[in-house]
């Protein structure tokens, strides 16, 4: 197995609504996204958008999650884009960022795509979210683009996203 770093992007001054990897080389088997992010809003939820497909389109997103806020545990299902990771919310401990790893299997295949993630919010407070999520994307097309964004707000300055190809 070979794991190749394709690109690392660091968000600059002023933040950004999203990081979009396009033209993903079709030379691997799996993809891995490593995200360090902080939101400019009070929401901790981070999303990935595959091939530019929005929630509610013909191609659907689905996920099951097991999560904790630090004080209580919860689980459930989701179909809103691909809620795939936790970012640090704007009120989390200053200058800290959430850690997330998202693994997408068989991204060039002609069957539906599946992914899994584990992520944590880093916060020295009452709440600090963590989750393991399993997700799917109903599409027989190869994954050629991936976007990283937050449910609300921007990716704050110094947030990073790295894309790896596993072959």
């Amino acid at each position, binding site marked *: 197995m070979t794991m190749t770093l*394709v*690109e690392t*992007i660091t*968000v*600059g001054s*002023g933040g*950004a*609504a*999203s*990081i*979009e*990897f*396009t*033209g*993903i*080389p079709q030379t691997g088997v799996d993809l891995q996204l490593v995200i360090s992010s902080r939101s400019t809003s009070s*929401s901790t*939820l981070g999303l990935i958008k595959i091939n530019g497909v*929005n*929630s509610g389109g013909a191609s659907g997103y689905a996920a099951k999650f097991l999560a904790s806020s630090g004080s209580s545990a*919860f689980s459930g299902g989701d179909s*809103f*884009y691909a809620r795939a990771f936790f970012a640090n919310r704007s009120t989390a401990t200053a200058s800290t960022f959430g850690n997330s790893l998202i693994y997408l299997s068989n991204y060039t295949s002609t069957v539906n795509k599946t992914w899994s993630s584990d992520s944590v919010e880093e916060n020295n407070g009452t709440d600090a979210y963590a989750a393991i999520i399993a997700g799917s994307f109903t599409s027989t097309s190869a994954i050629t683009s991936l*976007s990283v964004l937050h*449910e*609300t707000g*921007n990716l704050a300055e110094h947030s990073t996203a790295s*894309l790896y190809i596993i072959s």
Partner: protein
Amino acid sequence: MSDAPVKVVVDLSLPKGQRESIIELTKAEIKERTAMAAEAETQRIADEAAQAEAAATRQAGLDKLIALGLTEAEALALTR
């Protein structure tokens, strides 16, 4: 200078050093983003209401068990 939100687009078909572009969101993208945030907020409120209802139902059940003569520890043990 425009205050429109921007996105970082990374075209991996290009050589390193030429891939990254900072692009302002289009009106359609801003509209989608606004709709997404509104939908997320609606879902968040619904999720909180569902969690509150579940907690209230659980507490009502515990109260009934305690009213039947169980201690709180016994009632909680039954619900685990």
